[in-house]
């Protein structure tokens, strides 16, 4: 038993000795305590301040587990595959059970500790009103079960795939499918009848009931008296255990042959086939071309993405069509709205990926050796990465055309609303700061794969905004908020500029390090 748990013991000892983990847990506890204080001080502004606070903490936790947690667990085995150290571990007598437990348990404990440290503080939200202690306990049990499911899903993806990026992709793909599937099944249930309809409806309900997100909403509904053990917890534990056993069963099969780091995807192979018949040449902007190929996926992937986005918009329009509305106008609205929504997501992903690959593969120092300034190279890379958003811009453009005069009228009226413009400017600046933060995290953090980098940036942004807003709330600064927003814009802009320069400096330093 000692031998099986040797890796677990070593990892836990290392974690316990590192100050960073303790500091993060302390800051998390302090942050929740501060928010409790703020909500208590501004209790008059809400009918259920305890519930408001607890609900926002739960939403943040759910998103953090789903996004950052998936990436965190997806690297469990792939990090050894990428470093090609699995063979060495095997030669040292470390078996598959020991390896799986050694990589999975410390991660699970680390994540569970982050959740546990919040519990005593969140119990205090009961004193603010609107939430019962039973709801607090039920919510945390829900989150622990969700963490167990996500942890095992990430582990399975990590066993099956050869790189962290592909493992993250698989795990996220499954989670997104679980999110979308109930909606599609509900539509199928409505459109059909008989057994198919019943089966679709039953399956949709089962998936929905097993989702932590809907369970938290149910628990926190006013007047709810939640059961501690429910379908979501039991199903998450069972499915998680199935994933764990599957990981163990398939471990040897999928880790037998160690591959060179970096993977050749389907699009690379398609590109090669075409190259051999008619070699396509690099244009005048080689760095942009390279990232168009590797981050954007090249022409084939861009076209495919456009097809998917457009198809999705058409499907949504078709399913939500009202008889009295113009179909073109509605499609335009969907295309425009969804393009903006996905644009925000894609830009965040690009910001966290644009330099990560070069640093991970140690190609950055080679690229920087070109007779160009580091700024020229970095901006060219950003432009190359931005090509991935071309399908969205095409959809947005199409949406504007279909919306026609409605779009210009809406834009015109927005331009006349000074307050709305001010808020939009502030939010856009905050988003820009968030993009810089995720780029920075992806450069400096060891675990800076894009979902982790984005989550870290989002957490810093949300926490700092909440702290700033809470200061204003405590100061009772409700009048003259426009001036505060202007100051906020200026501060955000200043921090963004500083971060922009810091990214440049870090990139320079990283070129010399690799």
């Amino acid at each position, binding site marked *: 038993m000692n031998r099986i748990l040797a890796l677990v013991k070593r990892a836990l000892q290392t974690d316990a000795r590192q100050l960073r983990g303790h500091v993060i847990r302390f800051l998390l506890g302090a942050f929740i305590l501060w928010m409790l204080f703020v909500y208590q001080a501004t209790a008059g502004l809400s009918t259920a301040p305890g519930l408001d606070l607890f609900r926002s903490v739960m939403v943040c936790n759910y998103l953090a587990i789903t996004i950052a947690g998936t990436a965190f667990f997806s690297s469990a085995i792939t990090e050894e595959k990428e470093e090609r150290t699995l063979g060495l571990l095997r030669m040292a007598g470390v078996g598959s059970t020991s390896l799986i437990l050694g990589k999975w348990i410390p991660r699970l404990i680390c994540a569970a500790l982050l959740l546990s440290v919040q519990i005593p503080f969140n119990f205090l939200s009961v004193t603010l009103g609107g939430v019962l202690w039973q709801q607090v306990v039920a919510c945390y049990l829900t989150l622990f079960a969700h963490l167990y499911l996500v942890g095992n899903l990430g582990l399975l993806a990590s066993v099956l795939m050869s790189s962290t990026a592909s493992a993250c992709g698989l795990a996220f793909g499954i989670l997104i499918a679980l999110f979308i599937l109930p909606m599609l099944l509900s539509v199928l249930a409505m459109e059909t009848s008989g057994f198919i309809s019943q089966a679709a409806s039953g399956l949709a309900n089962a998936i929905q009931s097993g989702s932590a997100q809907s369970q938290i909403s149910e628990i926190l509904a006013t007047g709810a008296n939640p059961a501690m053990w429910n379908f979501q917890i039991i199903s998450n534990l069972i499915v998680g255990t199935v994933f764990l056993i599957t990981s163990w069963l398939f471990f040897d099969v999928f880790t037998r042959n160690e591959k060179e780091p970096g993977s050749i995807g389907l699009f690379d192979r398609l590109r090669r086939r075409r190259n051999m018949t008619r070699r396509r040449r690099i244009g005048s902007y080689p760095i942009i071309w390279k990232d168009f190929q590797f981050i954007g996926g090249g022409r084939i992937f861009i076209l495919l993405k456009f097809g998917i986005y457009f198809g999705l918009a058409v499907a949504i329009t078709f399913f939500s069509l009202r008889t009295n509305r113009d179909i073109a106008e509605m499609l335009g609205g969907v295309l425009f709205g969804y393009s903006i929504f996905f644009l925000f997501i894609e830009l965040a992903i690009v910001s966290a990926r644009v330099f990560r690959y070069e640093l991970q*593969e140690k190609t*950055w*120092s080679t690229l920087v*050796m070109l*007779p160009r*300034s580091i700024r020229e190279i970095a901006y060219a890379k950003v432009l190359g990465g931005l090509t991935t958003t071309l399908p969205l811009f095409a959809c947005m453009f199409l949406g504007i055309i279909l919306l026609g005069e409605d779009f210009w009228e809406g834009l015109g009226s927005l331009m006349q609303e000074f307050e709305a413009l001010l808020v939009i400017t502030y939010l856009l600046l905050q988003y820009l700061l968030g993009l810089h933060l995720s780029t920075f995290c992806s450069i400096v953090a060891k675990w800076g794969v894009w979902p982790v980098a984005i989550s870290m940036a989002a957490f810093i942004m949300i926490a700092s905004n909440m702290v700033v807003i809470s200061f204003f709330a405590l100061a009772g600064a409700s009048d003259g908020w426009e001036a505060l927003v202007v100051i906020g814009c200026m501060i955000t802009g200043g921090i963004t500029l500083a971060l922009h320069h810091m990214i440049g400096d870090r990139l320079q330093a990283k070129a*010399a390090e*690799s």
Partner: protein
Amino acid sequence: MDPVIEIENVSHLFKQHRALDGISFQVSPESLHGFVGPNGAGKTTTLKLICTLLKPQVGKIRVFGHDVRNNVKAIRRRIGYMPDHFSMYRQMTVFEYLDFFAAAYGFTLKERNRIVADVLALTDMDVRKDDFIQGLSRGMQQRVSLARVLVNDPDLLLLDEPASGLDPRARIELMEILRELRRMGKTIFISSHILSELAELCDSVTIIDRGKTKYSGPMEALLDQQTETPTYRIRVDLSAEETETQLSALPGVLSVEGIEGRSDVRVKIDPTITDGNQLLSAIIASGMIVMHFGRDQRHLNEAFMDLTERGVRS
């Protein structure tokens, strides 16, 4: 001719660790200069300073007369740096990879066609040009890496451990390519641990240890150094015992030592009494048939061991 690389009293600190402690040396044009030192001696730091990835904290570095602090672009246009690790876009094919760098250096399509064909031919990789880099062996990847370094036709090549991890065949082939490049007039600055090959390949060498220059100059001078008593390696048509007896009797011979496992002997002479020519004449005059006669040089390994300190750097 002005030196290609001039390093004057350069020191570099990483936090509390002094990586370089006042090193100085020069590299002449069109030479193959070896750069040797134990692990952690500061070789890679020096290479990164020369190739402008790092800025020197103390001292001066000039490459082609340009200060590395101020003329980064001018220097980068004329150098090619190959790091000690494989850093390649593995999803690219060999052709794409070289074409990408040629385009990044600003060459036109027509120039790129010629350049890529040339470097592929030089590194003998033209038959693998449509292969993904990931699928290539280590030796092949090293060739592609070298081809990439040559894309901008640099006057100075900075190679950090180019032969590490290569099998003997790949190593010999790499050395052949380097010889060919020297014949083409390139200056090559090569850091390596394979001393026997460096001794054979290089015109000059710099040995550093614990951030300090221990030797810098011609390879010949280093190998001849500390042999104040001229020593010759001789093989004649007699048995080892007879050879020792007969050679010891010749004028000016101080000692004759047999070499274990070989029929050669090592003869030390007194330079005030005789020299190499006189010794050879004396041997022939005494009726022995000379099978081999040559100046006995130290091996680079011996020089390296003498000049560097034992133990791990703190």
